[in-house]
């Protein structure tokens, strides 16, 4: 490959723009025997909360026609203490940059989790999940309110110098106030977007396909929504944008870069095609060669005016 994939973001250098989407790559160890981690600029781990969360009643995953996936995991995780005791050792900090995703129902919970995680070595930063559709409190409701976002980010910034990405929901009418609230209070990047709220019904049994009725809608159908939000967010703020939503190939990545993204998260695609990171870099390289692009940084925000 001849393209330069390095991207710089808020003081960190990433060897490629590729990242994982939180919750689709566990704590980073499960895929070690299957794939090479070199194509990743970094990985984002499953969201951690103060207390253990068993997660939602199953079934927790279903598909939609047209390449969609809906999940209702419900942020199942062992809680920050059990994580530190049992799982922190498995983080692939040698293989790639690691960003720990944090979830809280209140600002204090975000701060508590982060201050415990600050004790770890080798971590590059955090992603604040202000947008989970699968829990009743926190997440999506904090994430819809710019003053709650501002406070959460500010309090977290107070206790760390590391990279903080803030992940937002697409369920808002205007992205600018939310994006600005994050950017002005110390966010290093915005992750656009978490899943949409979706639902499926089996008409034969009259039952919803998920135990919680609704869940988080990801995969191909999310891409046009994510693109719009990445573009709007990149107009609203100067910090880098991490794109999340429906990326399955290299041309999807090019679209997101043109729309203004700097980081590119692979989410559900890792289930279908865990080998996608390598393939996607090759597809991007192919595009860049055909278009005389030397470095992917040239593409960021390079959308032509209509």
């Amino acid at each position: 490959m001849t393209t330069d994939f390095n991207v710089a973001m808020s003081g960190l250098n990433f060897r490629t723009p590729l990242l994982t989407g939180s919750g689709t790559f566990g704590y980073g160890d499960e895929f070690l025997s299957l794939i090479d981690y070199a194509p990743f600029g970094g990985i984002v781990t499953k969201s951690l909360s103060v207390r253990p969360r068993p997660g939602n009643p199953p079934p927790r995953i279903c598909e939609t026609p047209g390449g969609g996936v809906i999940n209702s995991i419900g942020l199942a995780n062992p809680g920050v203490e059990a994580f530190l005791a049992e799982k922190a050792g498995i983080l692939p900090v040698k293989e790639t940059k690691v960003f720990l995703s944090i979830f809280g129902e209140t600002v204090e919970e975000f701060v508590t989790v982060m201050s415990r995680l600050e004790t770890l070595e080798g971590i590059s930063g955090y992603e604040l999940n202000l947008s989970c559709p699968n829990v009743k409190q926190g997440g999506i409701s904090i994430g819809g309110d710019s003053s709650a976002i501002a406070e959460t980010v500010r309090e977290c910034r107070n206790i760390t110098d590391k990279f903080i990405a803030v992940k937002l929901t697409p369920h808002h009418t205007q992205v600018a106030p939310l994006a600005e609230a994050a950017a002005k209070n110390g966010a290093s990047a915005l992750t656009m977007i978490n899943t949409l709220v979706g639902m499926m019904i089996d008409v034969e049994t009259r039952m919803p396909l998920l135990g919680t009725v609704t869940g988080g809608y990801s995969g191909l159908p999310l891409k046009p929504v994510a693109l719009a939000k990445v573009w709007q967010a990149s107009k609203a703020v100067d910090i880098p944008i991490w794109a999340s939503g429906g990326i399955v190939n290299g041309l999807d990545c090019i679209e997101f870069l043109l729309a203004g993204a700097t980081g590119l998260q692979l989410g559900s695609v890792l289930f279908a095609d865990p080998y996608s990171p390598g393939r996607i870099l090759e597809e991007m390289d192919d595009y860049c060669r055909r278009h005389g692009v030397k470095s992917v940084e040239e593409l960021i925000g390079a959308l032509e005016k209509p």
Partner: protein
Amino acid sequence: MIPPIAEIGLVRESIEISPNLWDISIEAPRLASVTRAGQFAHVRVSAGFDPFLRRPLSIGPIAGDVLRLIFHIRGEGTRLLAAKRSGDTIDLIGPLGHPINVPKGHNPIIFLTGGIGVVPLQILDDQMPKERERVFILGVRSAFTIPLSLSEAMQRNILWASDDGSLGYHGNTVQLLKNVVDGLSADKKPLVIACGPAGMLRGMKKFCIERNIPSLVSLEVPMGCGVGACQSCAVPRSDGKGYYLVCKDGPVFDCLDILLETASLP
């Protein structure tokens, strides 16, 4: 446990053994050499992303470099898989899940299978030491819908149960299980290993608890990653401590460990 590996298998043969029931033989030497009974493969059904997810399928009988996937057409994913022909490739991840660990000191081992549930237990039957006593129960709708070839059926010493009475015992597998257990001499310490429809598993669990017979079940639930990363494949634990993951902790569980009664099984 062997960590999962990726292998592009080569389809050798694809046969519709009874209506909508397919048996695909796949050359996949690395998987064939390491897979043990009870494990499954996560199978890519489409080169694109519609349907998006892989499909979990038990790895069936293995002969040399060739393993078999035996499956019912349920929806789009299995339909696409059934369209594979000799010479096509299949993208497999496996072996996933824990091999079935048959506890010592039991005899006979009773395989209780319904329909396609026979698949993971065929390979266990093959891999278990010859001298171990076993009873192989297989329930089918009728004599016309059997999930294995006639020669395989003859090879194994199968006790049949059929809903319509056209093959073996006329009735369901749990009733037949009861008859089998009732016929055992008092010194026997049977163990049941079951795989099949949710109703059968629940009936079996109830019976085994009544008779104080230990039992294992192999579960099928919708999966995302298949490798323990996404937590899609949860089944409720009976100790109230949340959930087990079928792909990582299973797919075979001791009946007493899980809330089979309330678990949502497709």
